[in-house]
Each structure stands twice: as structure tokens, then as C-alpha cells.
């Protein structure tokens, strides 16, 4: 663990040096603020406070942005060191490969957390200031930040796995883009197509919600939606959420980082620098 912290410390320095922390925070802040202001229109018609609407639109934003930022940080983790030629020396030191990945994960996760807290926090503050906030909408904001960090963790470890499996950093970047596209865009499109084909049969009623929650991006969306009735109302996802037990989405989102980390470690162990 001491060695993992040593790695995390160096990685944190690197993230600060190469402006990654700053850029990620800036991106989160810009998008969250833009959405908060753009999404302030329908408040009256739904009868919820502005922060609730803001959280609903930021949930949609985070589905796209959290995986993207995480993969952009993760794809370089192993392949970058190997391309540079510094991996062999690092592995000659008495830190296990799991410790190295854990150290990188801690640093990357901390950077993501900072970006999420500042971005969503600022947008939430703006929404609360202008349109009011209640205990429930503040809770929803806190949940959004936490689940966004979890979603980031999923794609960080997937990024590490791709980084270890691919032949170089460029290939890892390409694979990461593919993974992002599949999980965030194509998966939902495929499900939508299946539901349309099935036209309200067994698949739509029984299987579809489970297939959906198996995808971490959808689990993230469902968790935020199901936990808050008013968010569900303003995001129109109440249907799918109500068909599943309450633990399904949290379980999926908590299981993915663990499985992904195990996968990344297994892939990293096969790397011969």
C-alpha cells in the first residue's frame, strides 16, 4: 500500500504538470454551467426547483463526459510507459503490478473527483442561487457527484485494461474511443432497436431493464433517476427505473470498477516490457 501511495503521488504530480487536472476541471465546469443555464426553462411546468432540473440535465451530461475524461486519462497508463521505455525499470522495483495500477487509479480518481466536485458543485450553486433548492435536490446533487466518480472509476480501469492489452499508446487511444462509443452510444441504440422490434413483448418487460442496467453508463443514469422521483419526472426515465429493484443499479455501478480492476490487473500481468 505504501508503494501504491508512492505511485499515486508521482501520478498526481504528472496530472498537475501536464495540465490534465486543470483541463478536466475546466471542461466539467464549462459544460455543467452551460447546461444549468440552458435547462432552466421548464422549471415552472414541472413544479420542481431549478436545482432538480439542473441535476437531471447534468446526469445526461455526465453519462457522456465522465467516461470520456476517464478513458482519456486511463489509456496511457501502461502503454505510455511501455512506449517510452520506462516500464521495465518501474517493474524492476518491488511494487506489484496491482499496486502500480492501484496507485495510478487513486491519482486519476482524485483528479476526476476534483473536476466533478468543482464542475457540478459550481453549477449546482448557480442553479440553487437563481431557482432555489430543497433538501431533496441537494441530496440529488451529492448523489450525482458520487455516482459520476464511480462511473469515472469504471472507465478508468477499462482504460487501463485496454492500455495493457494494446500494442501501443496510439492503439490504446483508438480502442478507448471504440469502448466509449459502444458503452455510451451504440449499446442504448441497440437496446432501443430491440425494444422497437419486440413491440412490448417479454423482452421489453422482463429482460430489457436487466440488460440495460448491466451497462455501467445506464446503471449510472438509472441510479440517479430511480433515487429521486422528481429527477425521474424531469428526465422521463421513470418507466425503466420502476421495473427494477432498487439495488440493481447501485450493484452494477459498484461491481464494474472491481471487475474492471481485476481485468486490468490480469491484462497488465501478461505484459512483457
Amino acid at each position, binding site marked *: 500500500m*505504501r*508503494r501504491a*501511495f*508512492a*505511485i499515486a*503521488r*508521482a501520478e498526481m*504530480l*504528472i496530472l498537475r*504538470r*501536464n495540465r490534465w487536472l486543470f483541463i478536466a476541471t475546466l471542461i466539467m465546469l464549462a459544460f455543467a454551467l452551460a447546461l444549468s443555464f440552458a435547462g432552466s426553462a421548464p422549471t415552472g411546468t414541472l413544479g420542481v426547483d431549478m436545482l432538480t432540473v439542473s441535476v437531471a440535465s447534468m446526469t445526461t451530461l455526465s453519462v457522456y463526459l465522465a467516461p470520456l475524461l476517464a478513458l482519456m486519462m486511463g489509456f496511457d497508463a501502461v502503454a505510455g*510507459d511501455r512506449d*517510452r*521505455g*520506462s516500464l*521495465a*525499470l*518501474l*517493474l*524492476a*522495483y*518491488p*511494487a*506489484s503490478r496491482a499496486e502500480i495500477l492501484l496507485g495510478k487509479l487513486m491519482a486519476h480518481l482524485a483528479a476526476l473527483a476534483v473536476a466533478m466536485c468543482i464542475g457540478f458543485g459550481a453549477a449546482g450553486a448557480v442553479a440553487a442561487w437563481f431557482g432555489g433548492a430543497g433538501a431533496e435536490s441537494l441530496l440529488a446533487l451529492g448523489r450525482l457527484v458520487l455516482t459520476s466518480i464511480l462511473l469515472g472509476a469504471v472507465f478508468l480501469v477499462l482504460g487501463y485494461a485496454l492500455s495493457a492489452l494494446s500494442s501501443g499508446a496510439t492503439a490504446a487511444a483508438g480502442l478507448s474511443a471504440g469502448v466509449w462509443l459502444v458503452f455510451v452510444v451504440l449499446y442504448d441504440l441497440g437496446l432501443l432497436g430491440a425494444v422497437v422490434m419486440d413491440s412490448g413483448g417479454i423482452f421489453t418487460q422482463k429482460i430489457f431493464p436487466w440488460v440495460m442496467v448491466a451497462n455501467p453508463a445506464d446503471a449510472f443514469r438509472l441510479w440517479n433517476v430511480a433515487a429521486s422521483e422528481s429527477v425521474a419526472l424531469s428526465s422521463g426515465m421513470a418507466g425503466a427505473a420502476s421495473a427494477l429493484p432498487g439495488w440493481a443499479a447501485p450493484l452494477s455501478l459498484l461491481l464494474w470498477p472491481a471487475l474492471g480492476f481485476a481485468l486490468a490487473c490480469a491484462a497488465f500481468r501478461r505484459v*512483457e*516490457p
Partner: protein
Amino acid sequence: MDNAKSPLQIRALDKFRSKTQVLHGIDLDIAPGERLALLGHNGAGKSTLIKAVLGLIRHEGGSIQICGAAPGSVAARAATAFLPEAVSFHPALTGHEQLSLFARLAGERADIDGLLERVGLGEAMHRRIGAYSKGMRQRLGLAQVLLGRPKLALLDEPTSGLDPISRQDLYAIINELAEQGAAVLIASHALTEVEARTDRIAILRKGVKVADDTLAGLSAQAGLPVRLRVQASDAHADRIAVETGGRRINGASVEILCSPQDKMAELRKIAAMGDAVADIDMVPPRLEDLYRHYSGEDRR
């Protein structure tokens, strides 16, 4: 000395890369304080052997023990220092930060500033490695070898990218390591450098160890000829060439190749020629000749 605690003990090591065998039954030992030069062409298996010792790659046959521990185990990695060929680091970190990371990974409370001063990076230690020259990166690599007190130091082409003065420093540091009791393995191309600065020489050819002895031992085994270069006075070169069976190499010189045992007899013969001989040079076989002999260029 307890055999199990030998810094490096390799027995019958086989390594395959897909179907081709890249190391064939390598046996190699290094004693504490011994400096071993590992020589061989590119692709002879030097780096592969080092990576196998580090546990970075798996081997298919034979055994490796580092101070009695398996390669890649925490004990083995803690006992080993490694300088990779053309060492590189993350460009965003400073030399000081990089070395601090290595010290923490090794669990050493080291004098980071002192080490960086020692390798001549005192001025540059708080600059980013991205701004370092190749030689400075190599020096940083050397600084991390000195972290802790390694029982075994594996240096892969340590002089590449270093200017002559840095090379002097490098060998001073290697001697220091050896004096502290580390077994030092230096994989190198720079034959003339390692010649005087190592205790023993091992030569790899296509994954086979073809020689492993001291320089003197290798010379004796190889039986390479001693080169006598006789400079004739006036116009006696032809006569000398005929009488000694040597070869005229220019107007006034004759080159004679003779085995080490015949050397004295040959010298007496030349001395007996009196004034006809103006000067004589004797060139024993150099490591370069031995290397060519053992690595196959002269063989069969």
C-alpha cells in the same frame, strides 16, 4: 560462501520466443564484488537474459536464483538494481521527484540530493526530465542504481550516450558498487572499455554462452597469435621477412604472427639479427580479437 546466497546463479536457462529458442542452456554465476562483462552482438540474447533475471519475462527451462530468491519475487527485486538500455523516464517529473519515487518504491530512506550530486545532476535535479539530455538521463538512471545497497546490479549498455568523462565516472561508480559487495553485470558493446574494468568476461553468441573466463584465461584458451612488428633498418626488411617467415607490411616493416609459447624463441631469433632490426613492437591479442574469435567471426 553459502551457495544459496550467491547474488546470481543461473542454471541451464532456456528461453523461447514463439518457436525460436533465444537462450540455450545458459549457466552463469557472479560472486559478490565481482564485475562481469556480458558481451555479444545485437540479438545475441544479452537483454533477454537480463530481463529473465529481473523476472520481466518468463523462461521455459532451467533456473535463476537471485540471493536464493526467484526472479520477480519481492526479495529478488529488492536485492537487484537495474539500468536499462537507453533508460527513460516520464518527462513531466523532475529528476528529484523521479528518484524520490524510486526510493519510496524500494522502501529506502536515501539521501536523494546527495545521490544526484554524486552523479553530477546537482544543478539539474529540480528541472523536468523532459529537458534533460540523453547523457543526463543516463546519469539519473545511474543514480537509481545506487539507491539502497544492491546485491546484484544489472547494467544494460551503461555507457551508451555518455561522453568519455562521464564514462570515467560511470566506471568509478561501478567499482564503488563492487567494493560494497555487489555483483555487477555489465552488458556492453564497448569492448575496449570493459577490457580493463571487469574481472571476468562472458560472451553470448546466438543465445549460447561461448566463453566465460578472465581475459587471461580466454587468451590462453583461444591460443590467438601474438603479433610482432619488426621495423628493419636500411634495406633489411626482405631479409628479415625471409628469415622469420613474416609478412612485409610496408617498405621497412615485417609482421610476424606466433603462438604465445613460441614468442620468446622468435624474439631471440630477431635479437640475433643485430643491427638489421631498428625497432620491435609486440601486440598481445586484445579483447577485440578474442571477441571476434569467440563470437564466431573467425570460427570455421
